[in-house]
C-alpha cells in the first residue's frame, strides 16, 4: 500500500518540520466504482497547498475545506461523498460511487 503514500506522508512531515499546520485525508471505505482505493491519501497545509488525491478530482475541493477546519480546531472528521449526498450537485462523484474520507490534523 505504501509507495505513492510515502511521498505524501514525507511531504506532511516536511511541512510540520517547517512549523506549518497540516492535515491528512484518507479514503477509509468505498462502494461501487471509486477512482481511488481505500488507503489513498491527500495531505494539505494551512495555506491550502496539497499533495495526493482521494478521488479523481471530484471531491478534493471539499476535502481541503474540511482539512483547513481540522487544522484550525484539531477535531477529526469523517466525510461521506456520493451521488446520494446532499451536496452531490456541488461535489458528487461523477462515477456514481460512494466514498468515506477521514480527515485529521497531524499533531
Amino acid at each position: 500500500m505504501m509507495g505513492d503514500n510515502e511521498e505524501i506522508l514525507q511531504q506532511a512531515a516536511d511541512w510540520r518540520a517547517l512549523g506549518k499546520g497540516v492535515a491528512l485525508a484518507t479514503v477509509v471505505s468505498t462502494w461501487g466504482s471509486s477512482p481511488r482505493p481505500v488507503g489513498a491519501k491527500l495531505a494539505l497545509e494551512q495555506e491550502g497547498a496539497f499533495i495526493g488525491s482521494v478521488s479523481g478530482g471530484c471531491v478534493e475541493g471539499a476535502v481541503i475545506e474540511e482539512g483547513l477546519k481540522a487544522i484550525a480546531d484539531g477535531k477529526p472528521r469523517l466525510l461521506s461523498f456520493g451521488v446520494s449526498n446532499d451536496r452531490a450537485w456541488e461535489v458528487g462523484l461523477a462515477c456514481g460511487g460512494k466514498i468515506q474520507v477521514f480527515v485529521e490534523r497531524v499533531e
Partner: protein
Amino acid sequence: MKLGFLQKALAASREGRPAVLATNLTNGLQTFIEATETAGDLTLDAAALQAIRKAVTEDRNATIETADGPVFIEVFNPRLRCVIVGAVHIAQPLARMAALTGYLVTVVDPRTAFASDARFPDVVLSTDWPDEAMEKLKPNRRTAVVTLTHDPKLDDPALSVALRSDAFYIGALGSKKTHAARCKRLQALGFNEEELARIHGPVGLDIGAISPAEIAIAIMAQITQVLRAEPQSDREAA
C-alpha cells in the same frame, strides 16, 4: 495523526518492516503497531487484533466495527522493489518508469561500461555478479525481477536466485526461441516446469512494442497486471 506515528510509518516502510495504524473513525484515537511494539491511546480487543493480522497478511486496508465505533486499519507494507538485471538501453526507460510507479529500483550489471552513473543518473546500481547481487538484494513477495542482458552468463544466475525466492514477478527478455533454450538450461540446473512457468518470457504484454521505451511500457504494464489483477477485480466486485 501524531507526527511520531507518521515518522514511524515512514521509517518502517523504508526499512522494509510491516506496520499498522488503527484509527477510531468516531473519536480519532489511534494506535500504531509494529512487530511486538504497540503505541497509542486506542485500545484494541482480541477481535480487532485478529483483523489487523489478517489485513497485514492480505496487504489490504480495512474498516472493522467495534463497540466504540468503526476502526480503520491501515497497513504500511514495505515498498515495492524492482530489480533490473542488465544496464542495457531498455533498462534506462524501465528504471525511470518503475521509479515513477513507486518501486525502489536497483539495476544490476557487472559491466561497468553499461552500469554507469552517466547512463543511469539517480538509479541505485550494483556491479556485482548477478547471482551475488541477487543474494544480497533478497527478492521477496514485494519484488519484481526483470532480466534484460540477453546473455545466459548474466541472466541465468539472476533467474536461478529469483526462482528460489518469493518474487511476485519474474520476467526475462528474449524471443520464444531464446526463452525455450533458457528454460532448457534452467531445467538442467534442476528447476521443474512449474517453477519455470513463473518466468514471463517473452517479457511484457504483447502491445507491439518496438522502441526501448515502448518495451519498458509493455514490461511495466505486465508487472502491474500481475501485482494488481486479483485485488482489482475483488475491489470492483465489493
